[in-house]
C-alpha cells in the first residue's frame, strides 16, 4: 500500500507537468482521492504527551507504524501502554503532541478513526447476559458489517478461536480465557484496518493464548496493522515485527526483537529491559 501511494504521488506530479493530457488529469483526480484514503503510515505519533494532573503517563512519545506491521508495545504496569492505546482509540485526548491513525487525527478526525480501528481493551468489556455470539454480532452491527458477511464471519472466527461450541452460552458463564477470546473477536469482527490489542492474552491459559496468537498472525498476514501491548516477552518475540519498550511514559528502545537483543547483547527481551532500566519487566505483578 505504501508503494501504491508513492505511485499515486508520481502520477499526480506527471499529470501536473503535462496539462495537455486530460486523461492523466483524470488519473490525478482519482489518485488524489485515493491518497485521502490510503495513508503513508497506519499510525503516526509525534511528541505525544499525556498528563493526569501531576502524573505524566506518556512523555514525548514519537512513533510510526506501517501498514501490515505487528508492533509490540512493551513495558511494566503503569508504563503508559494503555494510555497510548486509549489515545489511539479516541477515548483520551493528548495533552500535547499529535496522534493519527491512517492520517486521521485522533482528536479532530475521531469519527473516521473509529471506523477503521478495532479495540480489545485490557479489561474485557462484554455484556454478561448476552451470549458470546450476540456480543460479537453486536459489535459487527455497530460497525455496520453487512448482515450476510457478519454471519459468515462470526462463524469462521468462532471456529478459528475455538469457541464454536460455547458461542450460544451466556458470556457471564464463561471462563476468564473464553471471555478474553470473545473480547478479542469483538474487537476484530469489523475486520479493522488497525487493531489495538491491549494485553489480549493476559491471564490466559496456554491453549487459549496459542489460539489467540494464531489468530493475530493471520490478521497480520491479511495486511492489518496491529499494536499489541504485552508484558509477556515471549509473546513479543514470537509475534512482533518491531517492539517499542516504554518505561515511565518514555520510549526507551525501538527495533525488531532480534535487533534489540543484538544491540544490547541480550538473550531475550527481558534481559534487554533489565539492561535498559535496571529492573525486571514483571516487577510488582
Amino acid at each position, binding site marked *: 500500500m505504501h508503494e501504491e501511494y508513492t505511485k499515486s504521488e508520481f502520477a499526480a506530479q506527471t499529470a501536473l507537468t503535462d496539462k495537455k493530457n486530460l486523461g492523466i488529469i483524470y488519473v490525478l483526480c482519482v489518485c488524489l482521492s485515493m491518497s485521502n484514503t490510503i495513508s503513508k503510515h497506519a499510525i503516526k505519533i509525534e511528541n505525544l504527551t499525556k498528563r493526569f494532573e501531576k502524573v505524566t503517563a506518556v512523555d514525548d512519545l514519537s512513533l510510526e507504524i506501517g501498514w501490515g506491521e505487528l508492533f509490540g508495545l512493551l513495558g511494566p504496569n503503569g508504563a503508559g501502554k494503555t494510555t497510548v492505546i486509549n489515545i489511539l482509540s479516541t477515548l483520551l485526548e493528548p495533552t500535547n503532541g499529535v496522534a493519527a491513525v491512517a492520517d486521521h487525527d485522533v482528536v479532530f478526525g475521531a469519527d473516521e478513526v473509529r*471506523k477503521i480501528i478495532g479495540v480489545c*481493551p485490557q479489561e474485557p*468489556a*462484554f455484556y454478561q447476559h448476552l451470549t458470546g455470539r450476540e456480543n460479537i454480532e*453486536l459489535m459487527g452491527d455497530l460497525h*455496520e458489517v453487512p448482515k450476510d458477511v457478519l454471519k459468515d464471519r462470526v462463524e469462521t472466527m468462532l471456529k478459528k478461536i475455538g469457541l464454536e461450541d460455547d458461542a450460544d452460552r*451466556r458470556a457471564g458463564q464463561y471462563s476468564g480465557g473464553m471471555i478474553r477470546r470473545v473480547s478479542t473477536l469483538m474487537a476484530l469482527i469489523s475486520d479493522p484496518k488497525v487493531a489495538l490489542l491491549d494485553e489480549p492474552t493476559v491471564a490466559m491459559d496456554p491453549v487459549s493464548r496459542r489460539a489467540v496468537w494464531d489468530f493475530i498472525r493471520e490478521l497480520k498476514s491479511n495486511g492489518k496493522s496491529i499494536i499489541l501491548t504485552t508484558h509477556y516477552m515471549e509473546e513479543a518475540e514470537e509475534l512482533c515485527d518491531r517492539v517499542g519498550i516504554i518505561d515511565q511514559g518514555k520510549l526507551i528502545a525501538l527495533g525488531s526483537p532480534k535487533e534489540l537483543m543484538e544491540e544490547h547483547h541480550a538473550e531475550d527481551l527481558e534481559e534487554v529491559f533489565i539492561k535498559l532500566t535496571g529492573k525486571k519487566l514483571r516487577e510488582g505483578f
Partner: protein
Amino acid sequence: MSLRRTLALVKKNMKMFTRQPAVLFLLLLFPIIVTATFGLAFGGMGQGGVTNFDIGLLNLDAVSTDPQWTNSFEGNLTELEGITVTYFDDNASGQSELLQGNMDAFIVIPEGFGDSCTSYWNSPFDGSSWINTTVELYVDSGSMIASSAIPPLIQQVVLKTMFGNDATTLDLPVDIGSPTLVEASYFTQWDFMAPGIFAFASIFMIMIVAQSLTEERDGGLLKRLGTTPLKSHEFMLSQVISYMLIAVVQVFLVFAASFLIGYRPATDAAGLGFAFAILLAFSLVNVGFGLIAATISKSAEIASGLSFIFIMPQMFFGTFMPLGGLTETISRFMPSNYVTEAITTLFLRGAPVTTLSIWSNLGIVLVSGLVLLLIGVVLFRRYSTR
C-alpha cells in the same frame, strides 16, 4: 444517524431486560402486583363499581305508640343497594363493633323518633310544636369512603321516611343539578386510587435506567462502545426507544390487570388511548431522571439508592397519596402529579378527551420529559462516558 446501530442496541437492551429476573420483576411484574393488590384490597373483584357498607342499627323507639316511622326508616335503609343492616340491642355492643372495624357505620334511632315524625305532620308549619329528636350516626373514621358516602345516604333515608317516595321528586324552586355525593358512593376506594397507581407503576423505571447505565459504565462497556462508530445520540436514542417499549408493555399490563379485577374506568377507547400516551410521555421523565441518577452515582449499588431521590417525591406528591396545603403546592413540580390528574379527569370524572386540562397536563409532562432527558443526556455524556 444509523438506524441499524440504534436498533442493534435496542435489541441488546431488550435481551438484557428479559434475561435478568430482577429487572423483569421491577419493570413488569411489580406494576402488575401493585395494581392487582391495591385493586383487590380497595376495589373488590367484579363488583361493577358498587361499594358494600355494613351498617349497625339500634332502635331505642321500639316501644313507640306509632312504630310505623321506625319501621319505615329501617325499610328505607335496607332497601338501599349495597347496604347490609345488622341489628343491635344495646349501644355498647354496636360501638364496640364499629371500633373494631367490623362495621362502616352505626345508627341509633332515638326514643321518641316516631312521636317526633308525627308531631311534624300534625303541624308542619309550626316548628314550636314539634318534638325534636336526633338520629345518632357514627361512621368508621378509618374509612375514607364510608366517611364521605354514608352521611348523605342516611340523610336520604330520613327524608324518604318523612316524606315518602315523593321526597326525591318534590317540586322545589331550587334543585341540585348533579348529585355528586350520591354518585360518589358508588365508587370504590380503588376508583380514586387507580389513576395514581398507573403513574406509580412506571416510576421504578428510574432505578432500572440508573442501574443499567452505571453497570455498563463500570464494566467498561460505554468506553468500548466509544471506540466504535456509534454516536452518542444513537446510544441515547436506543435507550429512550428501549424504555418506551417497556413503558408500552407496562401500561398494557397494568390496564389489563385492573380490567381483570373488575375496574371499569368512566372513559372510552379515546380516553384509554390518551392515558396510554401520557404514560408514554411520563417514561421520558423517568429515563431523564435515571440518566441524572446514573451520572451522580459511582456504582450500580449507589445508583439504586440515589434513584429514590427522584422516586420518592414523585410517589408521595404525585400518585395516590392524598394532597393538601403544602404538599399540593409541592405536587405542582412533580410530573407524576400531572399524569395522575389527567387520568383522574378521564377515568373518574368521565371527562371527554377534548377536555383542555388533560391536554395541558400532557403538554407539561411531555415538556418536562424532554427537558429532563436533555439534561440527563448532557450530564451523562459529559461526566460518565469518556
